[in-house]
């Protein structure tokens, strides 16, 4: 009771002032002891936020009749409003990006405006058209510049990084949990992986620039970008799959051993499938991070800010008689990725086409990046659900 009455008094006073117009957007508080000025347009929202938290807390107390029950309810309301605040921040962020970027992304879009020619038959069918998603960024004949090279670049980066990191990370996790003796060595590895995970990405980028670029491609390239992002992803995959493998009950290992099944077969057929959902969670988190990573890409990956062609990785493999026998020109060339495209567009001086300003194009790119990351998440969550359902009776 004691704490709710002063709160109520403060709130009444505050509400009274605001409603009667005593303090408002136009009012300024300039205290005598300082030269700083506090304009009402900033002061009022801050006061309202604190007032709301205080109000929620004491309303909770009052509702459950004070005492221990009331304190419990007060804490519950306070924590609940914190959760809502967090959700509000997230919603604000997404809404802001969508409202700013949607106009750009939908420029020239039509549901049946495009044409799709059926292969071998040659009949044209009406087809949806998304110029911002399907067009090149630069080039002479592009009317509505798009982000296709950046989307493809991002997908190649993620694919390359994941495809060499996941086997390495899971392999190392299996070794550390199933084969290595718990001791000094595994502790050192654990500390090292945690340290690697918290290393700033620009440091990875610098390493790539100084060590990988001269040895592999001699300039910015997709493959170095994949490697650098893969190195960043590796510790997370290792940590999460290690946790997931440790969480598999020993009863499964005992049961398998008692049937006369070897350790490696047990790991392959019982332990790893059971650890799959946890591992996938780790990969999803990691992919979310590397898909939006910009700093290392600036150093080792990015090419022209307005690329006029999409990296054509699949068809550029060529066989040679000398080592390394297989080369891929596209993998060894620089490209664009969505975060890199966003950065280079908004820092560039003038946008080459008149249809968008730099900022508009940037917002569109940001929205596409958001959608790509959400799409990758959806793939990950879907596969995790699939494996969970296979493992458990649901």
């Amino acid at each position, binding site marked *: 009771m004691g704490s709710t009455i002063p709160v109520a008094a403060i709130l009444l006073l505050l509400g009274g002032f605001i409603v009667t117009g005593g303090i408002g957007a136009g009012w300024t508080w300039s205290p005598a002891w300082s030269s700083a000025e506090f304009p009402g347009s900033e002061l009022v929202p801050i006061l309202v936020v604190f007032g709301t938290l205080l109000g929620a807390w004491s309303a909770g107390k009052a509702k459950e009749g004070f005492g221990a029950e009331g304190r419990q309810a007060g804490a519950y309301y306070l924590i609940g409003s914190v959760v809502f605040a967090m959700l509000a921040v997230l919603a604000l962020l997404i809404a802001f990006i969508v409202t700013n970027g949607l106009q750009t992304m939908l420029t020239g879009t039509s549901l049946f405006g495009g044409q799709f020619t059926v292969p071998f038959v040659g009949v044209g069918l009406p087809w949806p058209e998304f110029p911002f998603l399907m067009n090149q960024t630069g080039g002479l004949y592009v009317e509505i510049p798009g982000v296709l090279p950046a989307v493809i670049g991002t997908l190649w980066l993620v694919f390359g990084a994941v495809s060499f990191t996941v086997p390495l990370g899971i392999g190392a996790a299996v070794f550390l949990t199933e084969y290595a003796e718990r001791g000094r060595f595994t502790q050192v590895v654990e500390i090292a992986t945690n340290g690697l995970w918290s290393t700033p990405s620009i440091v990875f980028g610098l390493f790539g620039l100084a060590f990988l670029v001269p040895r592999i491609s001699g300039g910015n390239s997709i493959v170095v970008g994949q490697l650098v992002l893969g190195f960043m992803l590796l510790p997370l995959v290792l940590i999460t799959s290690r946790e997931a493998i440790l969480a598999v009950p020993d*009863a*499964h290992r005992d*049961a*398998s051993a008692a*049937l006369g*099944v070897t350790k490696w077969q047990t790991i392959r057929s019982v332990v790893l*499938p059971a650890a799959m959902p946890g591992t996938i969670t780790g990969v999803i988190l990691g992919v979310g991070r590397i898909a939006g990573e910009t700093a290392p890409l600036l150093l080792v990956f990015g090419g022209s800010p307005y690329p006029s062609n999409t990296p054509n990785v699949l068809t550029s493999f060529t066989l040679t008689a000398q080592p390394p026998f297989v080369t891929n020109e596209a993998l060894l060339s620089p490209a664009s990725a969505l975060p890199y495209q966003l950065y280079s567009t908004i820092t560039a001086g003038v946008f080459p086409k008149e249809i968008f300003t730099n900022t508009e194009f940037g917002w569109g790119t940001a929205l596409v990046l958001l959608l790509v990351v959400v799409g990758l998440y959806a793939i990950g969550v879907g596969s995790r659900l699939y494996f969970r359902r296979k493992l458990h009776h649901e």
Partner: protein
Amino acid sequence: MSETESRNSTAQPEQRVTTTGESSEEVREEWTDYEFAGDAKIAAEDLDVYYGEEKALQSVSLDVPDESVTALIGPSGCGKSTFLRCLNRMNDRIKSASVDGSVTLDGEEIYSDGVNLVELRKRVGMVFQEPNPFPKSIKDNISYGPRKHGDLDTGLLARLLGRDDTDEEHELVERALRRAALWEEVNDRLDDNALGLSGGQQQRLCIARCLAVDPDVILMDEPASALDPIATAKIEDLIEELAEEYAVVVVTHNMQQAARISDQTAVFLTGGELVEYGETDQIFEHPRSQRVEDYITGKFG
């Protein structure tokens, strides 16, 4: 069980008297010397087990006959599970455990260096206290062992070459499930996840999984202690049936259960000693050791 416990608590003052008398009692050789017709399926000779510094089994010698149920009883911490886990070398999986002595299976030493653990555990199957089916389908649980041993090939390559063993797999799954008295209950949902079965069904599935490998000996570590009375009764019936073909060794802390299902009983007492071993009726009706009598009548333990 609860009956013994309550009797145990009422016998508190007496217990102190018997415990003092008990520690002075020496184990006589004829108490553990059990004669039976035929060769021993498993013979343990002077088996010592240490967990680090602690001695868990003290020089245990015990012969297990074929095609019968051998019950190992005793208070908790008496080494009965430890002894059981020596018979298929599952103790090798515990890093701090060291085993000294000899165990022979059909006359062959299993603690020599050249022994193939995979072959040994194929011949000596094990069922655990908690039902532990794999998080796979019922069918995959049964065919897991034979598949891993290469007895069944249902891989893609075999299927393409027309040499897959899908029919054999079906037969094997049905045979194992029938043998474990589970077929009637699950034959319409063999592809469902095994974790959806009840506890008793899961335990019978684990027995079926063990039978699918076609062992000679089945070790059971308190197989019914996590189950309700009805499921326990089913498991007990099953154990008696299995004894027609296999040597079954069952660890149990339930003396009534041991009396019901076993042909011979070994009593372990605190400190990892084998105190008495003989025909079940004789052990429960005329125990030769005073300590065993006290334990069976519920005066301590």
